[in-house]
């Protein structure tokens, strides 16, 4: 247990160092961009004086190191990521508004990936080399090679327009008084409005599915092969001879060791969800963090770009750390490298 704390501490320091270097590099890059971001943001009609004032407020007239130090001080002391030149609001306010929405979408996708990936992989492994296995393998192959936006478009056409089972995009309106966490579904739940929650889930289904299908397919392939490896293991044959019930054999003895590679891959997939979500958010008109990031990037908003790469880095790193901890719980032989 002590080891785990040490690992978390060391990883956190490591993440911090990486992010500091990364944000500095991005800052340096932004200064190299031709054209003045402040002038671009304010437009050509604004007087030179105003631009100059804004520039000095944002520390663009100071040397790079001083600007960076000022930015860092803002984060550490006030949680302030600077002013967005695109939304003309503090970046931290934008993040607080958009990030929870994307995290909620990623949460549902993450659940789908784990449940469906493991389920399909298990079915495929148990019924190895039957038509069922071949069907699952065929579908997961297609799932791996299809880009998420193609899923989005196909589902929108099929389930949204032709069958009309699900809404084609957007989100239901939520009473501002209800907003507590910024996650629409969770807010509806906290307010005890289950009908609204059901409606939100209905809106979320197609985006979450389009976002997760690549990973479901990949996960199913990984889980299948690791299950098959375990089916042939000595201890399974022994357990079978010893008369362990088949359900118990599959659920306990085969599942648990098979989860190790599954979990490792799962971490990578979930860590990448937020970064892959932007196109899905655009297609389904879901106003989340990924869509915000996209706008920030396209508008060359300096403080916005640094903030979003920072956030993506943190999410990616935290997910991976959690996965490493989980894997070491599953297999005590995998020692944590401290």
């Amino acid at each position: 247990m002590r080891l785990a704390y040490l690992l978390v501490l060391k990883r956190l320091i490591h993440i911090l160092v990486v992010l500091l270097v990364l944000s500095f590099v991005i800052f340096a890059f932004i200064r190299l961009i031709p054209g003045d971001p402040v002038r671009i943001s304010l437009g050509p009609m604004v007087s030179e004086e105003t631009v100059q004032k804004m520039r000095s407020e944002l520390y663009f007239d100071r040397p790079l190191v001083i600007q960076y130090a000022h930015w860092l001080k803002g984060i550490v002391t006030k949680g302030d990521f600077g002013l967005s030149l695109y939304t003309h609001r503090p970046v931290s306010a934008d993040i607080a508004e958009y990030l929870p929405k994307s995290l909620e979408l990623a949460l549902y996708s993450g659940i789908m990936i784990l449940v469906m990936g493991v389920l399909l992989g298990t079915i495929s492994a148990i019924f190895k080399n039957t038509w069922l296995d071949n069907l699952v393998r065929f579908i997961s192959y297609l799932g791996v090679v299809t880009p998420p936006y193609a899923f989005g478009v196909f589902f929108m056409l099929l389930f949204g327009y032709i069958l009309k089972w699900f809404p084609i995009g957007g989100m239901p309106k939520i009473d501002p008084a209800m907003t507590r966490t910024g996650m629409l579904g969770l807010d509806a739940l906290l307010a005890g409005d289950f009908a609204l929650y059901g409606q939100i889930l209905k809106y979320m289904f197609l985006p979450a599915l389009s976002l997760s299908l690549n990973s479901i397919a990949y996960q199913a392939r990984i889980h299948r092969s690791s299950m098959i490896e375990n089916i042939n293991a000595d201890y399974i044959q022994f357990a079978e001879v010893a008369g362990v019930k088949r359900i118990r054999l599959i659920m306990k003895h085969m599942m648990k060791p098979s989860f190790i590679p599954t979990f490792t891959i799962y971490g990578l997939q979930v860590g990448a969800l937020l970064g892959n979500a932007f196109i899905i958010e655009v297609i389904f008109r879901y106003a989340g963090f990924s869509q915000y990031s996209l706008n920030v990037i396209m508008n060359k908003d300096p403080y916005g770009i640094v903030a979003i790469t920072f956030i993506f880095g943190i999410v990616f790193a935290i997910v991976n750390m959690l996965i490493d901890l989980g894997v070491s719980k599953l297999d005590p032989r995998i020692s944590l490298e401290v």
Partner: protein
Amino acid sequence: MKKSRVEKSFNPRLEALKKSWYKFSRNPLSLLGLSVIMVIFFLAIFATVLAPYPEDSGLSVNFTRTFQSPSRQHLAGTDEYGRDIFSRMLVGLRYSLAIGLLVLILAVPFGILLGLLAGYYKETWLETIVMRFTELFMSIPPLILAMVICTMFTNSYFFSSVGIAVAWWPWYTRLTYNLVISVSNELYVLYAKLSGINVLKIIFKEILPNIYPSILTKMSLDMGSIIIIASSMNFVGLGIQPPTPSLGAMVSNSISYLPEYWWLTVFPALLVILIVLGFNLLGDGLNDIMSVEGK
């Protein structure tokens, strides 16, 4: 004369290649992948010759034939400007493949070089610097990194490739690094070291020829992923600029015309799936040969 022919006929590299091809050709899926790739490259190279309406790949307007559904004249229908979708798809295909190749050309040599150095000089400061540097680039999602870099420079076809390449090389460094470490304890490397051969010669003549098959496999699989990333960037308007067709932009521009004019989105999306499928089948086929040989 006869003797020399016997000597000539025994070329170990050629024999190994023949053996690999035999194994490869025994798997129908691998062959399917190879044929898909060959057809796709053929179509891409002769896109402007094969396209029934080559002028439609640019800015051409023909209001007499807007939004026509697929027919014999227009295999994949026409768009809001009356341009032939099939012709645009062929030209878009050419750009997709070009970006994939360009990214690999930019990213792979750089990644391999760093990986070779870090792996060969294991446990030195060089390894530490290279691997930390690699980690830095791996710490944010590749798509976001590629987009940030693309917008920082000019938003064009070339710089979107540069952006993806910057996000992509670390994976080759890591792969090469691991491969080098696994072969550097092999006897042939140790003997080479002991006999005092030039370091560069050891790296490029002894180590590299023994690890390149795995790298080649990764390259084939990566072509698919890069094409997905590049078309995702096109989707939001990064990379190839209109009126030049790109498959991703063709899909995104016509989402608003769903469901009536479904052919505008469905056919380009299917073409992307076909390309990626081809490269994945080929990559898996190559992977199978390698893993059999490894055992």
